[in-house]
């Protein structure tokens, strides 16, 4: 193959299937460019960033076309694009679609609550879209370089977003903590990647998997065990930071408290979803091989990952729930709740690692459980942070005390928030229950009874602090009975739209679950 052939092949691949599959990301890129240009060419159009972002995210969603790929009629297998750097399958379609849906809702939220400062709006949305681009890469990564690239692209704009409010001490402190911890864990992760890549002789994820299987089967492995285990652990450090898993969670409550509620929503939803998708991809890469003997040979790797992720999940979940008790600041409380939910979400991933060897159907169910959970979690946390932002605007405080007697001052908000909180606990007939149910079902199916027990125990534990907020809102009365809370109609409507899926999916989650199932169909 001479040079021109290579160029021509690459061109054909790039312009053909690759760019077609990459259209959503292209839409995001185009939006970023449009945002910057509009800022330059039409500086008087103040609301341009909002409209451009909404249109751009909607266009990306249109190109991602989940209704096309997830309807079950198309049975497209996974396809690798850009010469194997990225993978395009139903899982990435599903997760990216969620991301774009979130972007639309997020832009509207920022519009409704009116943060951040007006003149920064363009920069803010550019950062958001840039991070989203990185998350897209994380979700469809098929190569270790893309993994790292995606994580960095998602992280670096997030650091800035955390410190977006200028001249506020808490804000710059949050940004500093986030940046330092984030960069440090990314560095450790990169070192781990370099070890794994070097030992396995490839950075292409499926190839790494087969190489690992060959090594495990061939027995010339003993001297490399240590390096592989160490490399795996280091990669996990980076992921754990993005997932806010214990012991790499400590940045999260601080950052949430220092950043605005809107940014916290972004970090707790988009960032978490992308990290979860990446975790699933990595576990599949190192635990699954299409060939039966290789699949059998990977058993120790699966065992290792299942134990590691399972333990992390259990500890994360328990810690998050316990630490949430003593909080007086709503954003910190939701931060710890985010940590706990990261634990719940990791449980089916551990189950998947366990099941991948023998029961592919059950393993796919576990992946759909993760996908389903992420979708429900998106609306739960979005709603929760929207309430925090609205109450902040109306009452000027983010302390839980500020919510006292909310039901008398703003009935709709209190009812919506109660629904969201009960959904976070996981009570039927709300979507949070369905999500937990499918997740725990997978954990049970994998035979991880201890993990199941931890998960259920945590559900009971979490009741207390969520219920405390409900209690404050409903049973307590405000000391300074400040009368009705001024709340714009748009804000109420927004909250209603975000809360509605929790009730609708709680009662009838077949549609979403069918999509989640379709999302997992292409894996393994």
């Amino acid at each position, binding site marked *: 193959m001479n040079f021109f052939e290579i160029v021509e092949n690459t061109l054909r691949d790039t312009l053909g299937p690759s760019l077609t599959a990459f259209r959503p990301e292209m839409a995001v890129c185009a939006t970023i460019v449009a945002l910057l240009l509009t800022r330059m060419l039409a500086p008087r159009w103040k609301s341009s960033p909002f409209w451009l972002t909404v249109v751009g995210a909607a266009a990306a969603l249109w190109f991602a076309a989940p209704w096309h790929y997830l309807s079950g009629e198309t049975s497209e297998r996974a396809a690798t694009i850009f010469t194997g750097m990225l993978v395009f399958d139903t899982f990435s379609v599903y997760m990216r679609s969620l991301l774009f849906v979130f972007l639309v809702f997020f832009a509207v939220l920022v519009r409704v609550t009116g943060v951040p400062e007006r003149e920064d709006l363009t920069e803010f949305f550019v950062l958001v879209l840039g991070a989203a681009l990185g998350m897209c890469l994380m979700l469809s990564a098929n190569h*270790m*370089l893309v993994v*790292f*690239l995606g994580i*960095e692209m998602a992280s*670096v704009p997030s*650091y*800035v977003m955390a*410190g977006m409010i*200028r*001249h*506020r*001490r*808490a804000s*710059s*402190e*949050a*940004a*500093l*903590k986030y*940046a*330092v911890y984030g*960069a*440090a864990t*990314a*560095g*450790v992760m*990169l*070192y781990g*990647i*370099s*070890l794994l*890549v*070097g*030992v*396995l*002789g*490839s*950075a*292409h994820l499926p190839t790494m998997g087969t*190489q690992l299987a060959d090594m495990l089967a061939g027995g010339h492995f003993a001297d490399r065990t240590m390096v592989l285990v160490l490399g795996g652990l280091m990669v996990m450090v980076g992921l754990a930071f993005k997932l806010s898993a214990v012991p790499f969670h*400590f940045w999260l*409550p*601080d950052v949430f*408290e*220092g950043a605005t509620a809107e940014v916290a929503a972004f970090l707790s939803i988009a960032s978490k979803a992308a990290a979860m998708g990446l975790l699933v991809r990595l576990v599949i890469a190192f635990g699954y091989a299409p060939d039966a003997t290789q699949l059998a040979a990977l058993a120790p790797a699966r065992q290792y990952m299942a134990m590691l992720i399972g333990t992390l999940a259990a500890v994360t979940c328990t810690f998050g729930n316990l630490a949430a008790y003593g909080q007086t600041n709503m954003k910190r409380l939701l931060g710890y709740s985010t940590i706990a939910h990261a634990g719940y979400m990791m449980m089916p991933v551990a189950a998947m690692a366990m099941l991948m060897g023998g029961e592919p159907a059950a393993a796919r169910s576990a992946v759909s459980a993760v996908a389903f959970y992420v979708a429900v979690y998106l609306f739960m946390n979005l709603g929760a942070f929207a309430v925090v932002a609205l109450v902040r605007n109306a009452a000027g405080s983010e302390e839980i005390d500020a919510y006292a007697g909310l039901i008398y001052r703003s009935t709709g908000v209190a009812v919506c928030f109660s629904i969201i909180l009960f959904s976070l606990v996981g009570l039927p007939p709300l979507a949070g229950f369905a999500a937990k149910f499918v997740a725990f079902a997978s954990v049970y199916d994998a035979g991880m009874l201890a993990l199941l027990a931890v998960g259920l125990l945590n559900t009971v534990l979490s009741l207390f602090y969520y219920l405390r907020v409900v209690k404050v809102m409903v049973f307590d009365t405000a000391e300074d009975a400040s009368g009705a809370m001024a709340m714009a109609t748009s804000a109420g409507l927004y909250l209603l739209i975000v809360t509605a899926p929790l009730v609708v999916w709680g009662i009838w989650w077949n549609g979403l679950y069918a999509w989640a199932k379709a999302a997992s169909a292409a894996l393994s």
Partner: protein
Amino acid sequence: MNLLTQPVGLAHYLVVGAILFVAGVVCMATKRNGIGVLMGIELVLNGANLNFVAFGSPSLRADSQYAIGLDGHMAALFVIVLAAAEAAVALAIVLSFYRDHATVDVDEADELEG
């Protein structure tokens, strides 16, 4: 195997990379100055980079079928660029912290109860 008596091979590079990594981690963990911590992060990244480059070279490895070739070199280039971007952002954040707190001591960042 005594590394000092061997001709320079993969292992030597890895050792240097590991030293860089450890130095970086120690630097991150002990420095109180924000800039110092960022320097530690750079060291870690460069340690990983050295690994990538070394793993990428077929002539350095005995088991050359495991050499990652261009992938390693590309990774190194990308990491250099990323490190620069990250450093730029991190320095800007340190600067903004300095403006609000009049210090770059990371231990002073304790107003948000941890």
